[in-house]
C-alpha cells in the first residue's frame, strides 16, 4: 500500500523523479498497469460504476505527481502505480458500500431523495441482476466472483487456494496433473470470464433513469 508514512525523506520521489519515470515507462509496462486497472475494475464491479481503466491510471499518476501519494523510489514506478490503483479502487468500493448501507438505512427511516435515487437506479437497472459481479445484499464481492465459476472445480480450487494464501507452485502441487503452463492458461481463461462477467453498458448508454 502506498502511504506517506514510513517512507524516509531521502526516498520520497520528487515531481522531477515522477516525470522522469513517466518518460521512461515502456509500452509493456503501460500494458501491465492497464491490465491491472482493468482487472481491479472488473472485480469491484458496481462500485466502479462505468469508470474505465484509463481513469484509474490517470488518477494514480495525478496523485503521484502532486505528491499526495508518495512514491518510494526504491520501489519500481510500475509497482507503485499498481499499489495506488489498488488503494484508490479499494476506496471506491468502501465508499460504494457506505453509500448503499446509508441508502438502505435512510429508506427504512424515511430517506432523502438522493439515496432513494441511488437505490432506485440500482433496482431499476436490469443489468444489476444480470451482472454476477455486483454482489447482492447478502453476499460479498468474493462470493460474487466465486459464483462465476460455479461448477468449475478447478477454477474454484485455484481461487480458494490463492485466497487462503497458497502460492502458485503449492496449488499446482496440490491439484496435481497440471504443469505451470496449463495453470497459467486456465487462469488466463478465468480472467477473461471475469472480464466478460463484469462488462456492462456504459452509463451514457443506459436507458432513462427513474
Amino acid at each position, binding site marked *: 500500500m502506498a502511504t506517506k508514512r514510513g517512507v524516509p525523506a531521502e526516498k520520497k520521489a520528487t515531481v522531477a523523479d515522477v516525470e522522469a519515470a513517466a518518460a521512461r515507462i515502456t509500452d509493456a509496462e503501460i500494458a501491465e498497469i492497464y491490465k491491472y486497472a482493468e*482487472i481491479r475494475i472488473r472485480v469491484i464491479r458496481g462500485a466502479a460504476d462505468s469508470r474505465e481503466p484509463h481513469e484509474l491510471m490517470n488518477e494514480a499518476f495525478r496523485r503521484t505527481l502532486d505528491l499526495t501519494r508518495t512514491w518510494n523510489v526504491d520501489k519500481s514506478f510500475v509497482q507503485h502505480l499498481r499499489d495506488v490503483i489498488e488503494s484508490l479502487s479499494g476506496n471506491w468500493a468502501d465508499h460504494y458500500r457506505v453509500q448503499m448501507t446509508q441508502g438502505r438505512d435512510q429508506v427504512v427511516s424515511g430517506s432523502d431523495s438522493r439515496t432513494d435515487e441511488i437505490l432506485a437506479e440500482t433496482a431499476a437497472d436490469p443489468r444489476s441482476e444480470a451482472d454476477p459481479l455486483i454482489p447482492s445484499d447478502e453476499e460479498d464481492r468474493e462470493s460474487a466472483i466465486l459464483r462465476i465459476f460455479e461448477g468449475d472445480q478447478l477454477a474454484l480450487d485455484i*481461487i480458494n487456494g490463492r485466497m487462503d494464501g497458497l502460492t502458485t507452485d503449492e496449488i499446482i502441487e496440490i491439484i496435481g496433473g497440471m504443469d505451470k503452463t496449463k495453470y497459467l492458461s486456465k487462469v488466463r481463461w478465468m480472467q477473461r470470464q471475469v472480464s466478460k462477467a463484469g462488462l456492462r453498458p456504459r452509463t451514457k448508454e443506459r436507458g432513462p433513469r427513474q
Partner: protein
Amino acid sequence: MTDSKRSDRLERIVETLMEPFEKMTPEERRADLRESGLDPDAMVQEVRADFARIAKEYKQRALREMQAGYEAAVERFHARKSHIPTDVGAMQAVYVKAQRAHPLTVQHRDFAGMSPDELRQLLEQLDALGLLPDEEP
C-alpha cells in the same frame, strides 16, 4: 471476517488473475490485449498522452499558484500601513531604534552625507523586511 482480511483475499484474486499477464513477453501482452478487443498501440498512446496532459496541467497549476502568491505578497506590501515619519529627526530616531533591535550594517550609519530621501528609502526597505520597530501606542 474483518474488512482488512476480506480486502486481502480479494486482492489475492486480483493477483491470481494478473499472474498470466505478468509472465507474458511484451509481444504476448500485445496479443492478449488485442484478443480482448483492444488496440494496444492506441491504448499506449492514449495513456502517454494522458500522462503528458496531467503533467502539463500540474505545472500550469503550480505556476498559477506561485503567481497568485507573488501577487498577494505585492498587494500586502502596497496595502501595509507605513510607520515611516516625514520629519527627518523622527526618521533618524526610527532608524536608531531599528539598529538597536537588529544587527544592521549600513553605510553612513551616523547619517552624515545621507539625504532625507536616502534615509526614507532605507527605512522603506527595512519596513518591507519587517525590521522597523512597532509604533508606540
